[in-house]
């Protein structure tokens, strides 16, 4: 449970289209001071009288605290459903009901390590803020971004500057190396002597990265994306099977026990079934 979570009516400060996405800035006051890479926000969509009753969850791209109660949260939003399309139609000055920061954050090593950041589609969003923090701790940061096509790679200029190397893969070959991020990982891990992988993107991608991370004996923290109704831990819809320190698999809520989890602890191949031996099964 993120103890800093609060609910606020926040003002849209800006909304810019970038490739297939919208980069949106919200004036959130003190919420920004508590927001860390990996955390997310949940936003009401549709306006009064809407038939869309559930919030939409978005990973925080960047948070900036300007002190004296002034702060901003930036999001990268893909307008692919009715709710996210409504959100990306908001103009500067519009108000939206936002709850955040929610969920767990990426763990930051105390030692300067060699980190590999892997993002799929707009899953790259939380990685740039993470990269800045890691660089500030003296880490080497390499990044891999993958998407179906060039339009769906989210990599702003300032983001590119914050990493030591950036590798891009696209399914259709319209940018970077043709193929998936998982095709290039093994080589990057070896060449750059990676200690830890941080990832964010679709579940299939996270599963593939976990396999490689386990093979190469590299730590892997991933931010998972599971359908949520509430985002605050009360609806029990966003669960997934995760092995605890005691070796027992439990159905944990990705909104409060995640979204950042240890990839190796997730039982990925449990599609539409409760894994055998899960607590309470």
């Amino acid at each position, binding site marked *: *449970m993120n*103890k800093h*979570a*609060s*609910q606020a009516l926040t003002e849209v400060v800006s909304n810019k289209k970038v490739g297939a996405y919208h980069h949106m800035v919200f004036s959130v006051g003190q919420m920004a001071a508590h927001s860390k890479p990996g955390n997310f926000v949940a936003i*009401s969509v549709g306006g009064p009288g809407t*038939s*869309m*009753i*559930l*919030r939409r969850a978005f990973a925080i791209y960047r948070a900036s605290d300007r002190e004296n109660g002034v702060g901003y949260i930036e999001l990268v939003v893909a307008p692919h459903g009715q709710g996210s399309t409504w959100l990306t139609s908001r103009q500067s000055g519009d108000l939206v*009901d936002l*709850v955040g920061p929610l969920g767990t954050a990426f763990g930051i090593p105390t030692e300067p390590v060699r980190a590999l950041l892997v993002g799929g589609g707009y899953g790259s969003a939380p990685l740039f803020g993470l990269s800045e923090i890691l660089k500030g701790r003296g880490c080497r940061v390499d990044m891999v971004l993958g998407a179906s096509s060039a339009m769906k790679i989210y990599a702003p200029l300032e983001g590119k500057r914050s990493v030591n190397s950036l590798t891009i893969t696209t399914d259709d070959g319209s940018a970077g190396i043709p193929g998936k991020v998982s095709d290039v990982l093994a080589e990057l891990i070896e060449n750059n002597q990676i200690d830890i992988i941080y990832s964010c993107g679709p579940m299939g991608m996270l599963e593939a990265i976990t396999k490689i991370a386990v093979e190469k004996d590299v730590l892997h923290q991933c931010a998972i994306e*599971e*359908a*949520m*109704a*509430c985002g*605050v*831990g*009360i*609806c*029990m*819809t*966003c*669960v*997934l099977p995760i092995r605890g320190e005691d070796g027992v698999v*439990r*159905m944990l809520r990705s909104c*409060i026990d995640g979204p950042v989890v240890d990839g190796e602890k997730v039982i990925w191949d*449990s599609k*539409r*079934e*409760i894994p055998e031996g*899960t*607590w*309470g*099964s």
Partner: protein
Amino acid sequence: MSFDYTTSLGAAKFENPIFTASGCASSGKELSQFFDLRELGALVTKSIMIKPRSGRATPRMAETASGMLNSIGLQGPGIDIFLEKDIPWLQEQGVSTVVSIAGESVDDYGILARKMRSVTGVKALEVNISCPNVENRGMVFACNPVTARAAIEAVRRNIGGELPIIAKLSPDVTNIVEIAEEVVAAGADALALINTVLGMVIDTNTMRPKLAGKTGGLSGPAIRPVAVRAIYQVHAALPHVSILGMGGVTNGREALELILAGASAVSIGTANFGNPTATMLVKSELQELLIAKGFNSLQEAVGYAHRAESQ
């Protein structure tokens, strides 16, 4: 004159009529960072079973027009851990609490009631009988007058003392009044109306049911008229049995509908998912509305829609 917002369900008294709905507030902790839980008429806990439950596989949820479909499968820690961890926390915080229980057999309900017997600081026991009965081909207790009655009788026999029993009924029946009469005869002090409505969503991409559990319970504003109808029918037949109403309430006006139909208190369920402070919004809006309409107390408005045309 000051407005009297208090209410009662059976012998249980509450400061105000706004509750959470079971399964929509977990055991309270998660919502406590958004508002003071002591402001609730009562927090109704997630239905608890005898043993720990993993619940169903995912996907467990599908958003629908003005609603959502869920199939959680009563995930929870089981009654022992619940009584050891969750109840003491709620008591420490001074939260007015209603515990919801759910069983898979008639005996389960009896065992759960016995476990609750010695628990202090709980206002009432909600008995969720919208669960599959493993002894009767998975038929839901609440959908048959005989099994509905048996489950409530098992609780009544074992609960002892004064703890009021609230029987939570399913709208998925031909005649809800018949079920209500049976559970009241079996010893229920009050009724909770309504549980979710059974539904299904098919994903047109995969061309299979969207939820791993295939069917799910529909909740949210889409089912509000079903709730209003059920409450109205049951209140007409059993005017002296108090009703905890629920079904798609998101604001004060909608809560008033349920009160006018015959509910003495209103639970907020799915609205908490979209707005963690929905209960507090409903609480203040409903009170303002009742005062604006000239009522001196909540009690005066309960069932007011049933008055004769001449009134």
